[in-house]
């Protein structure tokens, strides 16, 4: 069992607290060019995701990678989450996972 490198659930707000660490988040793709994707976080703030995005991106994309700055992520893993996604639920789980229930996650 390897507990060494957890990926924390974040939105734009919590991203700030995890710069330099591994994070996971879902963004709504706004603009994509080559190695950079601009997306809207679940708390509706613009984030930049760098790395090698797959050729076809769906509306919602999950990225797992290192929090680069307070507004950007260097992504390692990209997963298309499809064109319909319940952003609110994700946002709420994200808040719980960074709040009272943090100990269950990291």
């Amino acid at each position, binding site marked *: 069992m*390897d507990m060494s490198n957890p990926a924390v659930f974040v939105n734009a707000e919590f991203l700030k607290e995890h710069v330099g660490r591994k994070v996971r988040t879902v963004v709504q793709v706004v603009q994509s060019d080559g190695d950079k994707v601009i997306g809207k976080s679940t708390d509706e703030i613009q984030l930049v995701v760098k790395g090698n995005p797959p050729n076809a991106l769906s509306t919602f994309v999950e990225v797992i990678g290192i929090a680069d700055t307070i507004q950007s992520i260097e992504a390692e893993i990209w997963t298309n989450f499809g064109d319909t996604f319940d952003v609110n*639920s994700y946002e709420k789980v994200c808040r719980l996972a960074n709040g009272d229930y943090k100990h*269950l996650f990291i």
Partner: protein
Amino acid sequence: MYGGNNQFDGNAAFSGGGFMPSQATQTAGDHSFSPAKNRDSQTLIPLTVKQISEAFQSSDDKTNFLIDGVDVNNVKLVGILCNKMERVTDVSFVVDDGTGRLDCFRWVNEAVDTKEMEAVTNGMYVRVHGHLKGFHGKKQLMAYSVRPVDDYNEIAYHFAQVIYVHSYNSSLRKQHDSSSMPAQVPSSAFNTPLKGYQASASNQFPGYSMDGIRGVDKMVLDFLQQPSCLALEKGVHRNELVQQLQLPSEKISEALDSLESEGLIYTTIDEFHYKSTGNG
């Protein structure tokens, strides 16, 4: 169906995969083990890998883990599948749910198992159901269902469920702690409030659990539990309670009704005499 399978899985894995020995061990072990091996302890619990890594192994028994005071046998994980390796009799893989990585194994006995494992590849989000066990001090999951996640809302949903189940189980445990239960090995009794209550009632005799009984109810119950009242065969008359406790008769009646419906007191020679069930 899963219950049966799982029991077999656990035992088979124990005894090195043999079919016949597992049956034998099962019968032999049944005597001491059967009370805990009820259906409640077999429920499927949604967890994070982090919780599993911190799970407390309650005894030498390798299958017995405790999380939030609850016996954990069957667990559900949602995460990314990686390091998939196909071997002759099983497929090994790792599930990374973002909180940690857990080694998993899936026996491939039948075509349906093979087919299910062929449908999942590295990097895919999967939902895994399996039996948690300890092996050489490491925790492993003997998976009996590995399916791709096709609606990604399930990820948020799974973690919401993890949080809910954690809160539910830990609040049950708090209730138990506050009813001054002596420290003992928690059991599957925590799974349902009903069982938890029964367990505390019998364990705490004669101290008795009065968790949740307050106000007039508690005063009436306390009065009826005095040794002098317990000694009276016919119990105590309603009017005597009114006099002794100096409370309005309606309040006393209400309390008596409520305690009676809780099974804490009963009427004796007529409908006016009450006695505590606490100590016959």
